[in-house]
């Protein structure tokens, strides 16, 4: 790389000189596609805002989220309590801000469980074929026979309420579509020449799956899991709404909404605000995931 070329022309060079440059060029291209796709850009900005809110929650929040004051319960939005107070006199704004941490925690943890699980099962089934494929895919079919909310509800009923159990239940309901996707990708990769070449070199099946098949599937799995994040967030909120998710006094949005439901006639904002937060977050993931798909998989463009 010559020192005189500008960053721009380095990024636009028709033939990358190093793997690093190739990756940077791909990122640059992605950014340009993102920039030309306003909905996706909006999603990305919303997500960044959300991440910033979660990260800097202690700085943003105006009140202690657990501090109760029965004398100021169910207050309308005001200059002291920007979004009003709940039934125990806690500041709703601060609770919604902290709630973003819980929502992101649930979404990312569920994704971190479901994606690798789906990836491993899908690639294994797809690469090995035969009986392993039949059995694993049958398992996937069985799980796919249930709508994810119903399955999560049933699991959480079995495991008991609580945020950890909700995450497990949601992950258990979220992995099968990913496994199916990974299997489909594997089937196309499996026949390719470079896999044959690796096999000729004597690599074990395990090694081929982990080092050569999985990396090929990861981009599409990431797109899928991003889109799934929205569904995961909605499921988590639904569980919280039924009292089966995060337990009090946690400021989980679904649980806050559930409390607000009792007061919806007198203090509609208690239910309205966490609902808006859920909607915005889930929308952000959908917008971004959509854009991500366009960027990473031009075939769908």
């Amino acid at each position, binding site marked *: 790389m010559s020192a005189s070329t500008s960053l721009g022309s380095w990024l636009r060079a028709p033939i990358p000189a190093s793997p690093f440059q190739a990756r940077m060029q791909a990122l640059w291209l992605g950014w340009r596609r993102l920039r030309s796709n306003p*909905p996706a850009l909006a999603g990305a900005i919303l997500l960044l805002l959300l991440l910033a809110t979660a990260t800097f929650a202690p700085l943003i929040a105006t009140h202690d989220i657990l501090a109760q004051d029965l004398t100021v319960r169910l207050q309308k939005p005001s200059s002291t309590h920007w979004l009003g107070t709940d039934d125990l006199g806690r500041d709703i704004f601060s609770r919604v801000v902290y709630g973003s941490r819980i929502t992101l925690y649930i979404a990312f943890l569920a994704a971190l469980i479901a994606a690798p699980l789906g990836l491993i099962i899908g690639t294994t089934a797809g690469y090995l074929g035969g009986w392993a494929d039949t059995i694993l895919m049958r398992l996937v079919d069985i799980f796919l026979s249930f*709508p994810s*909310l119903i399955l999560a509800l049933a699991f959480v009923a*079995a495991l008991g309420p609580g945020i950890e159990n909700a995450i497990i239940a949601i992950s258990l309901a979220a992995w099968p579509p990913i496994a199916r996707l990974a299997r489909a990708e594997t089937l196309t990769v499996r026949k390719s020449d470079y896999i044959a070449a690796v096999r000729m070199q004597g690599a074990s099946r395990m090694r081929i799956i982990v080092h050569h098949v999985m990396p090929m599937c990861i981009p599409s799995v990431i797109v899928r899991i991003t889109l799934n994040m929205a569904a995961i967030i909605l499921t988590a909120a639904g569980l919280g709404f039924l009292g089966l998710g995060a337990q009090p006094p946690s400021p989980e949005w679904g649980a806050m909404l559930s409390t607000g439901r009792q007061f919806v006639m007198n203090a509609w904002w208690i239910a309205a605000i966490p*609902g808006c937060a859920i909607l915005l977050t889930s929308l952000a993931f959908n917008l971004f995931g959509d854009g991500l798909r366009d960027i990473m998989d031009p075939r769908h463009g």
Partner: protein
Amino acid sequence: MAEAAVPARRTGGVAAPGLPSWSGTALRVVVSIAVTLFGLMALTFFIGRMLPLDPVTAILGDNATQEAIDAMRAQLGLDQPLWIQFGRYVGDILRLDLGTALTTGKPVLDDIARVFPATIELATVGIVIGTALGIPLGVMAAAYRDTPVDYFVRVFGLLGYSTPNFWLGLMGLVLFYATLGWVGGPGRIDTAFQWDVEPVTDLLLLDTAMAGQWEIFRNVLSHIILPASILAFGALAYISRMTRSFMLEQLSQEYVVAARVKGLSWMRTVWVHAFRNVAVQVVTVVALAYAFLLEGAVLTETVFAWPGFGRYLTNALLAGDMNAVVGCTLLIGIIFVALNLLTDLLYRLFDPRTR
């Protein structure tokens, strides 16, 4: 509702594609359904046994003596080894016996038969609204790709995916029922009319229409319109999105260009030529959307005090009624398998490319 999960279903659904003869395919389908159903039973049994809720306390109440509790355990077979319990479970299901619901004291299957019409009615009105709006929106978005129309439809669709429907229902009730008084409240019908409907199908709109009771029909409609619209929002999102992508594929075909060259108007080309080619695909999408409406109904019914399947399931969940939870879950599983099978069949029968 998970949009992304749906198209994937067809790529390797219950029926295995690519087999030469119909009889061979049929056999494979039957075997694979049987295996899936067995898996469903194993999974639901497993969930049922994992429940920390003690069905015995649920039956006998907080006040029972230990003696009565032990007797009830034996009566329910809970003192037997697991594999015997599973055998009994499978045997019972094959005899169409899902057990007795602890909360109602009636057979679970009877309960489900009783509450299901309410859900079917709600979901059907929902799908009608969703389809009537979703298909035109999807077609228009494709026809005017990358214009404000397209962006509007896409963002509107994403909103449909992103909105928690229980929240929308709650807000809708406050606004349209409590504040504006435009629609009927929670429940299927005003109490005053409740005993005036002769139940033939238990679909109240149909029953009242057949009996010519138009006042009551209007009342029923005023109750169903809000929850159905909220359910329709999700279905609309899915239908418009899939329609759009099917249409985009068609509109890039050469015959579209040919039609334009011949001087056909753009709208005519889009609707008459291109849409005809995607109709079958759209029908299968609508069928899948219908299945997902049943899922959406769970929380919507809870908010609208709608006496249907979803509310029955959540009641059972919160009361720890194991038999009812397991029965409902199993039934939903079976419905999904059946609907998937149906869409596969539709696809095979009508789609020119798979013929």
